[in-house]
Every structure is written in C-alpha cells, then in structure tokens.
C-alpha cells in the first residue's frame, strides 16, 4: 500500500487533465535552458534542428544570434532562414523577427533564439516571449533558448548574487507551460576556459566579463539555479502525469501560500519570494492586498498584483480597516498555511509600541508559518504625491492665519475668561487645521497655539516660563488634547473625503446603469458608453462594434459606432491594434503588451458568449497611465457595457426570430389550406364524374343531376379559392394598385346587396346615407362588400337578419355589415383578420378558406382604410358587426 493523503477514490484530477488538454492544439514549446551565455544553447538547438531537418521536418530559423561564434555559424548549416522584417522607427533603420511572415509561412518547427529578448519599439508585442505565445496559439512548434537569470521569479535572487539587475525577464509560467525543457550544462571551469579562448566574446569583452559576471562563484550559483529549476520542472511533469492519470502518490496536500501585497516598495519582492516558497512546497499561491480606507493611499499595489498574476498566483483585493485581523481572517478562510509578508519600514513609534504588522502577526498568527521578507537591496524609493486640488502652501498659510485669529480672539476675550478657558479657544485652530489640511498642519497649529497661549496669557505673562504646578498639568492636558484632536480629526477628514469620492463614483455608476437599462437601440447604448468612458478617462474615446466578416474574410472587422468627440477616429495603425484586440478578445495598443506604439488603446467588452465590442481610448501624450479608482471604474463600465450590448443583441435576435416565426406560420397555414381546400373539391369533382361514367345508366335521373350539380358547385368553389389565394399573395407582396375614382358608397352597397340576395336567396336590410362619398377603387370596394356579405350570410341562421349600413362619420365614411349569427368569441376578435383563420364550424356551415376577412383587411388598407370587428352586437349576446372606414371626400 502506498502511503496516501488522498482520501477520495483515485480519479484523474480534472485540473491536471485540463492542463494537458490545453496543451493540445497549441504548438509545442521546447526551451534550451542554460546557466549563462556561452554554454552552447544555440548550438545545441541548431544541432537538434538539423537532425529533425534531415529527418524531413519543416524547420525554419526565425531568429538565431550567432554572436559571431564560428561553431554556431557552422551549426546553421543548410537550414532555411526567415528574412527579418525591416522598418524605420524615429529615423532609425531597424531589424526584427518577422512575426506575420512566420505566421503566414507556418513552419513545422520555428527556431527563435533568446526568449527574453525585448522587441524593437513598434513591433506588435514588446517581448519576444509574447511572439512565441501567439505563434503557439496558431499551432506552430517553437524552439527557443534562454538563460536562467531571465526567469522572472529569480531576477531578485540573481541581482543579489551577481549584483546585476536583469531587466529582460520572462514570466515563470512560460517556462512552466513549455512542453520540453532541455538543460545545456557545462561545469563553470570549462565555461571560463572557453571564455579565455575567446570562443564566446571578443578578447577585450571577454576579460571584462571574466572580472564581472563570469566569476566562478556567480557561475556556480547560476548553474545551481538552472539545475534546480530543471529538476523542479521534471518533478512537476511527474506530478502532473500522476495526477492526470490518477496515480496516488505521497504529495503533500493542504499547503497554501498567501502573499500579502502591501502598498510599499517591498511588494514585488514579497511576491517573488512567495512564489519561490510556493514552488518549493508545490503549493498554490494567493496574493492579497488589503485596502485600508482610513490610511492615505501609498504606492499603487497594482503592478505587484499583476506580477503575482504573471507568476501564476490568484490575486484578491479586500477592504478592511483592521489590517492584521483582515489578513488572519482571509488566511483562515483560504486554508492558508504559509504567510509571506514584507518587513516594511515601520515608524519609530510603532516599533517602540510593538504595533508593527510583523509583531502583531507574530503574536496572533499562531496557526501559520510566517515568512518575513527583507526590503529589496536597492529598491527605487517611490515618492508618492497625493493629488491635491490646492497647492500645499495654502494649508500652511491658512494655519498661520487661524492661529493669528485665535490670538486676536484671545485678546478680545481677555479678562472675561480664565486662563484655562482661553486655552480652549486655542484648540479651535488645531481642530480646523487637522480637519482641513492634515496632521502636519495640525501639529504646527498645536505648537504655535501652545506657545502663544503660554507667552501671552499664562502668568507670568510675556514669558515662556510656567509658574505653578497647576499650569504644568494644564499645559500637558492641552498638548495631549491638541495632539489627539489633530490625529483623529485628520483621519476623519480623510475618510470623509475618500467616502465622498466613493459615493460620487457609485452614484455615477448607478446613473450610468440606469441609462444602460433604459430601452433603446444599440446606437443610443454605445453613445452612452462612449460618453461615460470619456468622463472617466478624461480623453478621447470611441466604441467599436464587430462587423460580421464578409465572405472570404475570417475575422470580424471593428467599426467605430460612437465617439467622443463625435469626429474622433483611430488612424490606420491604431486600427491594426483594434483588429488584433477584436480577434484575440484582449486589450491591445498603447500601454499594453500588443502594438504599444499605437496612439490608441483598445479594451475588449467581454461577455460569456465572446466579445461584444471594443472601447478605444486616446489620452494626451504626457498623461499618467490610468490607475486605481479610474481604472476600476473603467473596468466596471466595460463589464456593464458588455452585458447591455449583449442584451440588446439578444433582443434584436428575438425580434428577428419572431418575424421569422410569423412568416413560417403563414406558410404552414397556406400549406394546410392547400391540402384541404384544394383537395376536397377535387375529390368531389373526380368522384362525381367517376360515378357518372362508371354507373351512369344504373343511376336515377335525380341522382345524375345531383352528381353533375356537385361537380359544378365544387368547380366554382375551387375557382373562388384560387382567386382568393391570388388576392392574398398580391396583398402580401404589395402588388395592389388601386385605381381610384369618386365612389358613392350607398350606390356601391346597394349593388353588392342585390347580388348577394341573388346568390344566397336571402334579403339584406339596407340603411344608406347619400352623404357617404369617398375616393376609392370601385372594384376593390365591391370585393370587400361581397366578402363581408358572403361571410355574414354564411354565418347567420337561414331565417336570420343581415343588414348593411353606409354613413358619413365626421371626416370618414363607414360601411357596416351586421348579422345575428353565433358571433365571434372574444378571444378570436383580433385574429379574424389573420390569413387562414377559420371560425369553428359549430353550425355545420361550410366555412370558406379563411381568407375572406384577411383579403378585406388587405384591400381596405391598400386604399387607406381600416376594418374592425365587434361581437356580440345583439341584446341576447349574438351576432357580429364588421365595420370598414375610409377617409371621406
């Protein structure tokens, strides 16, 4: 039995499987890792590539730096080389690796020397490792070289050992995600020997290097780092394999490392150190920043948090007033076992009282292993200026004025109040200075007030000496009260200011979300987003939405849909960044890792379904990068905008879907009608004729006549049906062209009634007004009337009453047809004019095609009229009235 800490049955770890799956489809990455320049990384890479080339692989050299070394030059051999891109940047002719050419060429294996290389300005990505990422995303296998000192998490340690700070770094995850790492290792003595022989650098350079970086001690330390890193990687590979394949092993479970990212210069060192500890423990790392609303903002912890993310940590920012308690609470909640904090530079007072963070944690964090990280060797001291609306001297001047005012007031009240009470007057400027300007000004006010009080009012007056012990006590109390007031009031003033700023921000967010929530089309929406973003950023912004790719294109094209000011538009170079951002759903342009030379920055509005659009930002050249509150506000804005845009899109989609469903319903109804209304008469006609022909002689005269009548009637029914279908098609396709003339409605109604009477053998009651004259097509009007009368006669009892009324109604003329049949159910009233709607045939009447009323409506509308149905109309709840109205003459 293996000793195991896993108490579940051995299932493959989903995360490990996911990591494996993520690798699939991406191009492989092979890293030739060395301890120092000159160990032979490039040579080994070329040798391996030549073997693969000889084996038939499609190998292409993207960039290989031979540094003039003859051996390396020879190793290139016959391998094909990708021409470098040449371009001009600020008047200089520059050469760089041609990423687009490599992507277009799609080699099997691409050799790209020096992973840590910084690209020349104007390239798409600032760093070569980012080129590599893009190549791998595109499925290209990349081989590359790198020295261990360029690894992000080691740069601090390397600086400590060698005294040289490496600026070109590669995030640890790049190496961690590499599919293969080959360690190129030679003993330091041999490397130094090579160096002496001038096989690495030219002789003059070599001697300088040997005295500096290439000391044996340095090389040994670097070599150890490289070996260790490789060993850790092998270990990680094995663990990953074991987890993916659910092999139980004795790996430790439960260790978690939490780095406390403070707002000080040590933050980045803390993160790096925590990464190392986490790596050694094989434990997950979480970096946490506690924002204290009561303290003045220190340096932005953003860069340190970003670094932590690059080093593979999860990051979090929490807001709390009590720092140690917050840390302990978060650590306990996350099941953390190791806490990493910076030693920091606590003030003398705190050190004296034992109120430093490390001291408090030492006392209280009994459940955790505590790591204290020293301050960086030569960390650049960041001066942070709190943004102020007024120049500083105004605070000081105002404090002085306050003190002078207090002195004047003291003189005015002299004699009326006791010396002690006058002291109270002097507290006023202290409080005012503390609340209005800050602790320093309050301190000055306290000292000045004390001196003035002592000198001017305390006996003996006009000296600074103190006479009685009573007054000594008074002075001490004054000093304590003044100091206390200065501290707390100052703190209060700051939190009030911070809270006010926050409330303003929140109110803006609420107002904006209300604007987004308001119904409107996408145009209004993007305009609102642009305006709000401009307010936050304080610069030129635009909103770009994706235009679906045209046939033959693969990527969506970003199109500017709103801008503030209205004519702002990114130039062509910036549009390249926008296109990249849209295709990759990531930020691009100025201030990002992709195409930083562009004048605009583009940030994606992401939704769960993908990209909703881009926000383009252009700021003044000298403007500070967006930080803190503004950056967070912009992030929130982008999220909200993305959701709102997605919602608008979904609503448009639904509207389109509904329209489609309506067309579909009409088509289905037409098909059903064809099936029934066409087939039934045809069956009757064919059957009647068949019977007559087959058994004509055996049939009685009456039967024969009836069969012939059947055939005749059904033929008529068919013709009517076909005419109706043609009418509805013409109406639906708007191919109706009324030929208008002046029509007397009474005359037209009478003619229609006479014909209906002839056809149905029933009387139609008439009530006609001679004033009803309109400009209409008489043929179409007649068709409407015939349809309405036909309907009414069909749906009423044979003895029932059908009436036709025409009258003038204000500016309109109206014709109403009324019957006393069963009426129309309330729920069907609005549907009777839909094509193919049929009344339920409760009365066993041969219902029509369900087109009559639809045609009436279509014809009426074509002539500028309208039609309405009412039911019931009689006192006993029966009957229906259909009224057509037209503009009168």
């Amino acid at each position, binding site marked *: 039995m293996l000793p195991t800490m896993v108490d579940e049955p051995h299932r493959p770890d989903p995360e490990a499987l996911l990591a494996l799956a993520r690798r699939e489809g991406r191009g492989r990455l092979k890293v030739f890792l060395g301890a120092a320049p000159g160990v032979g990384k490039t040579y080994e890479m070329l040798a391996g590539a030549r073997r693969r080339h000889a084996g038939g692989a499609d190998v292409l050299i993207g960039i290989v730096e031979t540094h003039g070394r003859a051996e390396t030059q020879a190793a290139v051999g016959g391998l094909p080389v990708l021409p470098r891109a040449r371009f001009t940047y600020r008047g200089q002719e520059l050469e760089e690796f041609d990423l687009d050419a490599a992507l277009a060429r799609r080699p099997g294996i691409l050799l790209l020397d020096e992973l840590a290389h910084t690209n020349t300005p104007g390239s798409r990505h600032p760093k070569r490792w980012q080129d590599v990422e893009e190549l791998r995303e595109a499925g290209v296998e990349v081989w590359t070289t790198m020295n261990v000192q360029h690894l992000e998490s080691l740069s601090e340690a390397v600086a400590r050992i060698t005294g040289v700070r490496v600026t070109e770094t590669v995030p640890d995850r790049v190496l961690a995600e590499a599919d293969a790492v080959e360690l190129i290792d030679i003993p330091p003595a041999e490397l130094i020997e090579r160096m002496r022989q001038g096989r690495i650098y030219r002789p003059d350079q070599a001697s300088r290097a040997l005295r500096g970086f290439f000391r044996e001690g340095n090389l040994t330390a670097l070599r150890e780092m490289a070996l260790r890193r490789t060993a850790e990687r092998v270990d990680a590979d094995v663990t990953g394999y074991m987890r993916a394949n659910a092999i139980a092993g004795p790996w430790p479970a439960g260790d978690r490392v939490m780095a406390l990212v403070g707002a000080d210069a040590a933050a980045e060192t803390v993160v790096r150190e925590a990464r190392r500890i986490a790596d050694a423990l094989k434990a997950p790392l979480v970096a946490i920043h506690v924002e204290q609303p009561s303290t003045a903002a220190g340096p932005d912890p953003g860069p340190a948090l970003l670094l932590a993310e690059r080093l593979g940590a999860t990051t979090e920012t929490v807001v709390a007033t009590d720092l140690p308690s917050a840390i302990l609470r978060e650590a306990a909640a996350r099941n953390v076992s190791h806490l990493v904090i910076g030693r920091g530079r606590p003030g003398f007072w705190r050190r004296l009282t034992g109120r430093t963070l490390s001291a408090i944690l030492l006392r209280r964090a009994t459940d955790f292993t505590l790591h204290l990280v020293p301050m960086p060797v030569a960390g650049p001291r960041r001066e942070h200026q709190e943004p102020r609306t007024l120049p500083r001297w105004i605070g000081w001047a105002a404090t002085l004025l306050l003190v002078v005012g207090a002195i004047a007031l003291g003189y005015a009240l002299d004699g009326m109040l006791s010396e002690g009470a006058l002291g109270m007057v002097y507290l006023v400027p202290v409080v005012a200075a503390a609340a209005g300007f800050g602790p320093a000004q309050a301190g000055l006010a306290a000292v000045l007030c004390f001196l003035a009080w002592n000198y001017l009012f305390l006996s003996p007056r006009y000296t600074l000496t103190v006479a009685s012990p009573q007054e000594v006590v008074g002075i001490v109390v004054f000093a304590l009260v003044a100091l206390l007031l200065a501290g707390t009031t100052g703190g209060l003033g700051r939190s009030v200011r911070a809270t006010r700023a926050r409330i303003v921000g929140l109110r803006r967010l609420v107002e904006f979300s209300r604007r987004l929530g308001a119904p409107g089309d996408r145009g209004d929406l993007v305009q609102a987003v642009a305006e709000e973003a401009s307010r936050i950023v304080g610069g030129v912004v635009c909103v770009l939405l994706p235009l679906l790719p045209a046939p033959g294109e693969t990527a969506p094209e970003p199109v500017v849909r709103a801008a503030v000011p209205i004519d702002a538009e990114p130039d062509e170079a910036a549009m390249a960044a926008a296109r990249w951002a849209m295709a990759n759903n990531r930020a691009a342009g100025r201030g990002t890792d992709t195409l930083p030379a562009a004048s605009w920055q583009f940030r994606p509005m992401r939704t769960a379904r993908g990209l909703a659009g881009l926000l383009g930002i252009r700021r003044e050249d000298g403007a500070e990068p967006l930080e803190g509150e503004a950056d967070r506000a912009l992030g929130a804005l982008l999220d909200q905008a993305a959701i709102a845009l997605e919602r608008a899109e979904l609503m448009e989609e639904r509207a389109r879907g509904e329209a489609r469903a309506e067309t579909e319903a009409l088509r289905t109804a037409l098909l059903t009608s064809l099936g029934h209304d066409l087939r039934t008469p*045809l069956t009757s006609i064919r*059957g*009647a004729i068949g*019977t007559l022909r*087959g058994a004509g002689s055996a049939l009685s005269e009456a*039967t024969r006549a009836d069969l012939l009548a059947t055939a005749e009637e059904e033929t008529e029914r068919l013709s009517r049906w076909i005419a109706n279908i043609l009418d509805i098609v013409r109406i639906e396709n708007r191919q109706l062209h009324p030929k208008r003339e002046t029509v007397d409605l009474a005359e037209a109604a009478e003619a229609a009634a006479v014909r209906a009477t002839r056809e149905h053998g029933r009387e139609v009651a008439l009530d006609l007004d001679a004033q009803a004259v309109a400009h209409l097509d008489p043929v179409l009007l007649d068709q409407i009337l015939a349809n309405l009368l036909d309907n009414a006669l069909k749906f009423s009892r044979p003895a029932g009453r059908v009436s036709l009324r025409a009258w003038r109604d204000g500016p309109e003329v109206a014709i109403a047809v009324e019957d006393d049949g069963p009426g129309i159910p309330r729920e069907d009233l609005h549907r009777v004019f839909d094509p193919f709607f049929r009344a339920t045939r409760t009365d066993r009447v*041969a219902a029509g095609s369900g087109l009559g009323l639809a045609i009436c409506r279509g014809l009426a509308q074509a002539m500028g009229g309208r039609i309405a149905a009412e039911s019931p109309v009689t006192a006993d709840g029966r009957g229906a009235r259909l009224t057509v109205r037209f503009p009168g003459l």
Partner: protein
Amino acid sequence: MSELAPPRILVIDDEPQIHRFLGPALEAAGFTPIRAETGVAGLRLAAERSPAAILLDLGLPDMDGKLLIPRVRGFTAAPIVILSAREQEAEKVAALDAGADDYVEKPFALGELLARLRALLRRAGAAAVEPADAVLRAGPLEVDLAARVARLSGGEPLKLTPREWDLLVALMRGGQGRVITQRQLLLAVWGPAHAEDTQYLRVYVGHLRQKLGGAAYLIRTEPGVGYRFGECTDQA
C-alpha cells in the same frame, strides 16, 4: 357471399360533398352506404349496423381518425380503408399500424377505391372460411407452407434463405390485397428489437425480387408506407 343482402359500407367523412357522390357510387357498385359525419356518429354506427367495411377520413372535426381505429377494432374486424391526403405520410402509416387495412389518396379515382374495397372484402370472407391455407398462390407463384417450398409456374423450387422465406410468407399472408407497413413486416420477420430497421427490409425485399425474377412485380412498393403483395387488380 353477397346473395343475402348488399354489404353495408360505413363512410365516415365530414365533407357533405364526399357523401354526395360516394353514396350513389357505392349503391351503383352493389353496396349499401351508411353516412356518418363525425367520429362519434361513426363509432356508434359501426357498432349498431355492423358494416362489412369502413371508409374513414382522418381529418374529422370532433376526433382524430387515428384514435377511432383501435376503438372500432375493439368490436369488429371489418376492413378499414383510410381516405387521406398525400402529405399526411406519418398519419397514414400510424393509421395502418393502428389496424387499418388500406388507404387511398384524395383525390382518388372511384374505380381504385371500389377495387380495393372488393379485394379487402374477398380476403376477409376467405379468411373466415379457411383459416390456414396449406398452399398460398399469387399469380405464377405457389408457396407450400407445409413442405416449405416455393415454385414459380410449377418449376424448380426457389432457393430461399430462412429470412427470405419468412418475409415472403409474411407478405403473402398479410399483403394480399392490402397494404402491409414496414413496421408490421419487421415485427413479423425480425422481431420487436428491429422494428425500426427499415434498411434490412429494403435489402431483403431486393433479394426476394431478384429470386422471383419475372414474378417480381408481385411485390409492389408503397413509397414511405410499406408493401402490397399480389396481382395488380385494382386500377380502374
């Protein structure tokens, strides 16, 4: 079979025009038509008047014609002919599976309907007289069930695999003068596990037609529905 009284034919259809010509036509052909315009009336008349055959329209105003079939089958074995529209493919098959015997498509030729009707009545009468034939015949084909031998025009016995034999017998028994659905054939020959494997059926029917040679016309395909077996007797 019909010396005593003309066989009654129940027509269930909601269109009065259909009754108007079917009535005289059936009478002229020697039947007594019974008229029903709703499903409920049809069910009642089928029970009261015990018709020899039923003509049924699937689109009734008060109930689905398909649901009527099992209820009618509860008390009578009289042949049921569906009057259906061409596009109601699924309806048609479902009705046949539910127990209907044949169908005609509207607008149908009267002669065809009458021929189908006569074939069904003949078969129903024959089944009542002799329940199990030892030898089945159709055109030139003669099948001796006892000896498991099939001959064409008295020639050499056909070489049939057991499956082909089963299929042939199922077709001859069930499909003489009526339609037999794919599902019914699959159930009879392959069993319930393969009731949906119409591909089998197509392949075996193909084999069978090949072996029947000149008598292949006996197996007629009803597209989308099934097969019909026997001489072509019904075209008017």
